[in-house]
């Protein structure tokens, strides 16, 4: 094994390669690695943020849902109340109408009875006069005895 000038040649080559590595290899590659590291860190941050925002959104969705459910329940209750109110009102109106019709009918009947009574009374008066004429054998002056006959008819 001979030591010779190769050792000097190697030292020169080594220095040149180290220089080239320092200049063209190490800085750009480590810069790229650092850049990617930063990017990944940012990406992870963004993912975290997105997850947090998603959780927030879900929470607000939940809240909104709850609120609308409550509102719907209130509305349904109101509607039910209103419906029963309408039914009640309708019932009352119908009742009132029925009462009114009943009252009118009763009044009509009363009137009819009165009219019939009047007619009967008039006929009775005539019959009484005719009967009395026959009994007395003489005509009774209707006009003279009108007050008497009417008194009689009113007593019937």
């Amino acid at each position, binding site marked *: 094994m001979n030591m010779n000038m190769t050792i000097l040649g190697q030292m020169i*080559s080594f220095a040149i390669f180290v220089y080239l590595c320092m200049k063209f290899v190490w800085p*750009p590659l480590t810069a790229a690695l650092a850049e990617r590291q930063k990017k990944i860190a940012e990406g992870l941050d963004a993912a975290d943020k997105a997850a947090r925002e998603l959780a927030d959104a879900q929470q607000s969705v939940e809240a909104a849902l709850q609120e609308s459910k409550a509102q719907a329940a209130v509305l349904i209750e109101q509607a039910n109340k209103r419906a029963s109110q309408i039914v009640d009102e309708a019932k009352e109106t119908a009742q009132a109408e029925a009462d009114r019709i009943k009252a009118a009918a009763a009044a009509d009947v009363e009137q009819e009875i009165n009219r019939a009574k009047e007619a009967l009374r008039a006929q009775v008066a005539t019959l009484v006069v005719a009967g009395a004429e026959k009994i007395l054998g003489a005509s009774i002056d209707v006009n003279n005895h009108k007050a008497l006959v009417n008194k009689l008819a009113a007593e019937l």
Partner: protein
Amino acid sequence: MASGMTSSEYIAHHLTNLTYGKHPVNGWSFAQSGQEVVDMGFMSINVDSMVWSVGLGAFFIWLFSRVAKTATTGVPGGVQNFIEMIIEFVDDSVKSMFHHKSALIAPMALTIFVWVFLMNLMDLVPVDWIPHLAVVVGIPFMKIVPSTDLNVTMGISFSIFFLIVFYSIKQKGIGGFMAELSLQPLGKWALPFNLLLEVVGLIAKPISLALRLFGNMYAGEMIFILIALLPFWAQWLLSVPWALFHILIITLQAFIFMVLTIVYLAMAHDHH
């Protein structure tokens, strides 16, 4: 195993670098034998080690800078993903061991890890393919695993040694560095002993770094060469398990080289 060679010739051939240098007799030329390589001494260069290591280093820079240029911050593709995995692995290692600010350490650790790994990876190319091809086209020797050449591992570890000394002085001053070398572990009355201990410890860092990688790769290559001496139908019985095991070794050695570099430079930055 090439025909017409004895086993020892075959092994020697596989362990000899393609060397260009100043031969005392032939002048500047490619060494044609191991003896000529020895004769050339220091004034020579291992062409195969240089070509393969620079080629692999250039491949590393090309691949990584191409990915760096088109790196997206979005979803990474296959190659970018793989490169980023390596970058993060190295970055984590550096951050866990080196607690000072430095624009140099992390890119250097990456360069060491990938470059050493690629050089080690050449060990998994079947030992005869490229050397034999080289012989066919007329190149006498071709060692394709640069990290089995002590010059290569020493070249890197000495560079690191200079960085250790540089940063020690930069962070602590000449006086601080000298004090660190001479006033511990036993206090100022044992100064020569301290100095001896610390200087040996300091020099042992690059030497052990280089020898560990070289030794592991050289031994691994040697075993592949020895397996290649078996009859062709029996080689897979040993070469496949050894190659699988070697995948672990080459990765581990690249990692150890990187980690120790970081640790040594962190120690150079720390005040004791």
